[in-house]
């Protein structure tokens, strides 16, 4: 039989308050606009509620949220590409967009599989082993993705010195 999951004592809203900012930033690196990033975050927590808060521990919960969010982002990007949707369609609401610099643009341009490890390592401060656990990846795979992301960002950085 599978390992049973512990009963979560906290509410879904507590989890939302704790992880919304992190998940929004991750979603933004995929979707590159606030509208789709908000939609992805919303869908992620709707799925979280449907799941009923059943997680073995905090790391399991966080990893599940990140993987679910990135899957939603990928699906939305595919769907968006099929619909040829553009930002101009979001005329009913104007959301502030962050001022992007060369580095952030370079992060947006990274392959999807590099973005989350990079963000978790450099911004959230997680160790490689923790990231591997959350993303259900081998430690060496996380190390490789981080190294490649760094190299790609470094190249981009050196090619655009005026933006520094």
């Amino acid at each position, binding site marked *: *039989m*599978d*390992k*049973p*999951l512990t*009963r979560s004592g906290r509410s879904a*809203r507590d989890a*939302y*308050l704790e992880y*919304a*900012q992190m998940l*929004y*930033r991750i979603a*933004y*690196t995929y979707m590159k606009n*606030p509208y789709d990033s*908000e939609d992805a*975050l*919303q*869908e992620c*927590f*709707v799925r979280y*509620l*449907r799941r*009923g808060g*059943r997680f073995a521990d905090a790391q399991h919960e966080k990893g599940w949220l990140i993987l679910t969010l990135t899957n939603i982002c990928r699906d939305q990007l595919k769907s968006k590409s099929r619909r040829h949707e553009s930002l101009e369609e979001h005329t009913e609401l104007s*959301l*502030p967009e*962050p*001022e*992007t*610099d060369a*580095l*952030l643009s370079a*992060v947006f341009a990274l392959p999807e599989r590099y973005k989350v490890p*990079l*963000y978790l390592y*450099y*911004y959230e401060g997680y160790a490689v082993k923790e990231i591997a656990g959350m993303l259900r990846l081998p430690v060496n795979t996380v190390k490789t993705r981080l190294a490649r992301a*760094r190299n790609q*960002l*470094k190249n981009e*950085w050196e090619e655009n010195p005026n933006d*520094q």
Partner: protein
Amino acid sequence: MTNKKLMESFNRIRLEPERAEQIWLRVESAYSAAEHPTVTRRKKLLRIALIAALLSVFFITTAYAVSGIMRSTGTYPMTHDEEYRSLRDLPEAEKILGYPVTVLESLGDYCFLRMRIGGEAVFDENNAVLQPYYGLHVQYEAPGRKPLFLDLAPVLELPESSGKPEPTETRISDGAELRYSRDHYKFVPEDYQKTAEDLAAEAAGHFYISFGSDAIEECELEFVGFVLDGVNYVLMDQNGDGAEALFQMAQEVIAARHEEGGN
């Protein structure tokens, strides 16, 4: 490129608190809208789960009381919570359950309708989990009659119990002991307070109260329980079919199990 620069770049992406609050409201709204159509079905499943929990208490041979300490069983969140509409899915169900089961297309006049796998557990008096397991709940139907349920759960490796309620009648069939009971059940809301009549009826026996329903509902239920290859089988009838009808159905399951090569 420095780590600090990368931090600064990521900091540019920010979800403002008021936007976060609006998204949460949308989450709640979307979740409620998605769940609403299934409320009725969920209530039905809850009712089945309540009955299943009762069955576990009174028929799982080691899960009632030890040295005067009360135990209880109930639903428990586990990885799988599946519903199947065909017995062709039984092999898949068995993989999740982790134990072999025999489920027939028909029992007496009843035909298979659906089956559901859900996590359950035995809890101690402090509501701590003693042992989680998967239960299988099978529903049969017959025209103009209330559903018949067959509930299966593993025989649990817990210390031997005492104080288990006595069945109304027992019978031996192909080496299996069939335990028949006819009991009165009262389903009540969580905040229900037992009355003096309730307490007296409980003391007299064959009267049970189950908390967790939406409204008070009472019914007579008949059960036959037996153990096959380390699995508890409990048949539950709500139509007053009587002991003989339930014994006959139990014997059909036992015969089929033996034909499948079980002990």
